[in-house]
């Protein structure tokens, strides 16, 4: 196997929004490479639809402080409030910066960035939804991703596309390099570097019904686990309430922002029961649970596992009247079909393509879908990766975006806050890494740089046990969906862990048919499966460990939030099948935990 060596100051792993923002800033002064298993424009940031949150106040009164409070409350008080304040106060500036880079936001009649309401974002005085999500049609993430990629091209950032990162190398506790497998050739590449920024996004592929891309398999968190580093708050994984039934394709909250409502089999707008004030725009964990309960109590459509999301103009207008919703100028809120078509073109297209229905004529069947990892690689406010609950920094290692856990989202992320998170902390990571490399020297590569990678490659290529990747994947998804999703119990989680342990054993006997070097994607998928199993395991374990209900983590056997014992972050290490937990207190600056009502 051929090995190529490159030398950089900063290596960014992942070409999504977080990685590209980091690269844009790092490459201003440092020699920077982006190593990504996909062409950057194919990253899942491009799937983000609804908008990016920032209290610009373009349409009505709004303040970063309100945004911060909503985020803290949305996080079920598990978010670190110093990080939350930092992010929300940075938000307007960074959205303007994106606009200056060319992001084509929609516009208000007077030419400013247009904003729409989104779940959990409220006017703190009235408790009513506020227009805070800055949007570019319903493809905000796509526009941000494209723009950041384009600006990187302009700046001459080096890209290594379709390179699959398999390992991170350390020298005396500092980052020394990154190992990647070039998909086109099967060669190995060792990037010697002073700093590495991990920005590889989420791992929604652990579940069956998911809004996440097939490539979101949590590779780098698994690498760090294997390298003896911890992960934080893995039990918190968000299920978005409105995925297209069975497929999981996301129907943005923006649909409800524009006035769409959730309807059960009896034709009731059931969110009135669960969130009397903001109703359909309650935060995601609340809505997802509501749908589960409706379904469980037999009020799913036709008794099935889904409800309707109704965005037909007549329905929207009916409930807007009932709610007394108004336009910015005070006139009653009333939409036409044309308006909705213009604001939600992609959603309408999805429904037509995959369901064969026109949402202007028929309601959309939806069910909760695995969506977003709140937990991940623990970092400081400066995006530095830490090795323990004492905030001990790993020199040269940074993480940003969905893969990281700062933690701004705590137990539940608000819509629009992830795009914000990736650009704010992507930028921080880029700046910090660039600053770090000016005074750090290039550490030597360890002698065994590629050993772990080679070993694993050999094992996968030559495995003869006869286990199929596809079988293990589908069994893993099944058990995660059954026991480690919206509702959890001790019994279920224990069963899940047993099953996952069995799958991990079987994984050792996996064999693949493709032995070639060129685009051996079967090999890559087998590798990804190993990573997913590790993450599934720590997710279930962390969920079993946390005996309370908070945000997205809902334990039926412990249905109350328990601030006494659990107002803290979970850190988990996994070493040779053995795990260890530790805890870090939540940073509270302004807002003491209260009961969360919407």
């Amino acid at each position: 196997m051929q090995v190529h060596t490159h030398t950089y100051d900063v290596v960014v792993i992942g070409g999504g929004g977080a990685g590209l923002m980091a690269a844009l800033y790092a490459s201003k002064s440092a020699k920077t490479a982006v190593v990504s298993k996909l062409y950057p424009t194919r990253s899942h940031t491009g799937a983000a639809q609804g908008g990016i949150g920032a209290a610009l106040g373009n349409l009505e009164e709004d303040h970063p402080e309100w945004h911060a409070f909503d985020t803290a409350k949305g996080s079920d008080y598990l978010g670190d409030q110093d990080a939350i304040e930092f992010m929300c106060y940075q938000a307007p500036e960074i959205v303007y910066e994106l606009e200056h880079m060319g992001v084509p936001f929609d516009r208000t009649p007077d030419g400013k960035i247009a904003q729409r309401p989104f779940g959990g974002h409220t006017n703190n005085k009235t408790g009513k939804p506020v227009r805070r999500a800055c949007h570019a049609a319903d493809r905000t993430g796509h526009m941000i991703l494209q723009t950041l990629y384009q600006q990187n091209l302009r700046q001459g950032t080096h890209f290594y596309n379709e390179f699959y990162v398999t390992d991170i190398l350390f020298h005396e506790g500092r980052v020394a390099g990154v190992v990647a497998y070039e998909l086109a050739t099967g060669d190995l590449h060792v990037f010697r570097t002073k700093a590495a920024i991990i920005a590889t996004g989420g791992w929604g592929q652990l579940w069956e019904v998911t809004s996440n891309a097939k490539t979101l398999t949590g590779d780098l968190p698994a690498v760090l686990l294997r390298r003896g580093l911890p992960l934080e708050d893995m039990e918190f994984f968000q299920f978005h309430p409105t995925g297209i039934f069975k497929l999981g394709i996301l129907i943005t909250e923006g649909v409800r922002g524009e006035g769409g409502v959730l309807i059960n089999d009896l034709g009731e707008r059931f969110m009135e029961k669960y969130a009397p004030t903001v109703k359909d725009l309650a935060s995601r964990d609340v809505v997802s649970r509501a749908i589960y309960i409706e379904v469980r109590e037999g009020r799913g459509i036709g008794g099935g596992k889904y409800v309707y999301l109704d965005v037909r103009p007549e329905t929207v207008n009916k409930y807007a009247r009932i709610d007394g919703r108004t336009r910015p100028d005070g006139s009653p809120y009333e939409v036409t079909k044309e308006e909705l078509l213009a604001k939600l073109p992609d959603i309408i297209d999805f429904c037509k393509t995959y369901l064969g229905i026109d949402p202007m004529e028929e309601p959309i069947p939806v069910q909760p879908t695995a969506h977003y990892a709140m937990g991940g690689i623990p970092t400081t406010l400066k995006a530095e990766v830490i090795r323990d609950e004492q905030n001990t920094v790993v020199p040269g290692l940074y993480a940003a975006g969905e893969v990281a856990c700062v933690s701004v989202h705590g137990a539940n992320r608000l819509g629009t806050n992830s795009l914000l998170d990736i650009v704010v902390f992507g930028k921080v990571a880029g700046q910090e890494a660039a600053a770090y490399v000016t005074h750090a020297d290039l550490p030597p590569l360890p002698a065994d740089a590629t050993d772990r990678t080679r070993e694993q490659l050999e094992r996968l290529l030559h495995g003869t046990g006869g286990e199929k990747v596809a079988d293990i994947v589908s069994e893993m998804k099944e058990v995660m969906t059954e026991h480690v999703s919206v509702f959890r119990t001790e019994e279920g989680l224990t069963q899940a862990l047993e099953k996952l342990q069995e799958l991990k054993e079987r994984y050792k006997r996996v064999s693949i048919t493709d032995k070639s070097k060129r685009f051996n994607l079967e090999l890559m998928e087998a590798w990804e499966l190993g990573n997913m199993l590790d993450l599934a395991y720590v997710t279930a374990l962390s969920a079993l460990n946390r005996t309370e209900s908070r945000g997205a983590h809902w334990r039926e056997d412990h249905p109350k939030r328990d601030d006494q014992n659990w107002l803290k972050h979970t850190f988990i290490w996994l070493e040779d099948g053995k795990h260890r937990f530790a805890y870090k207190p939540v940073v509270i600056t302004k807002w003491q935990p209260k009961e969360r009502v919407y």
Partner: protein
Amino acid sequence: MKVTLKVFRYNPENGGQPRYDVFHLDVDPNDRVLDLLEMVKGYHDGSLSYRRSCAHGICGSDAMRINGRNRLACKTLVKDLGDTIVVEPILGLPVLKDLIVDMEPFFQAYRKVMPWFINNDPPPEKERLQTPEERARFDDTTKCILCAACTTSCPVFWADGSYFGPAAIVNAHRFIFDSRDQAAEERLAILAQEEGVWRCRTSFNCTEACPREIQITKAIAEVKRAILTGDLS
């Protein structure tokens, strides 16, 4: 329902010649072609190689020729195809393995049109203002996901790989008609070159192929007009 899936196979590494493999599958009419490929890869022949990621038509990974025309495998349902489905790589880019082609020439053309926002005035404190009408002017071409379905459906490109191709023009259009951008003139000069817009013979395959339903031929016509008249309205 039962379908016959015929897939183009090629792996030069095994000294192999291009061939077609046939699979008989039992599928749901609502399955995507991508689901069929995943089924084959998972349970019939793991060596089948193709790109994919988002699985719902927004990342642009899996453009391929399905029953003779370019589409995204993840956006094409079995029920719209009938019971014989032929899957081949997109045309005009070198095939590397099975359904995977070398995208580099495609991205080279993209990079040539300076596909990045340029405005060298010091930015205002807040956003640059733009009316909803000005914003709507270039909305259509912002939708591009760089899947290459258009460029590789273009009869001119099939014969002449140095033609910039519709995707590059679409991405130039996105900036040329953005009222905030200042480099329209340079981009138009690039597109007026020999391998630029004038090579387009309005064959229209591109517009038919675009999974984002971008009105590509119209965009190209608008660029041509802008080159001739200098009018960017």
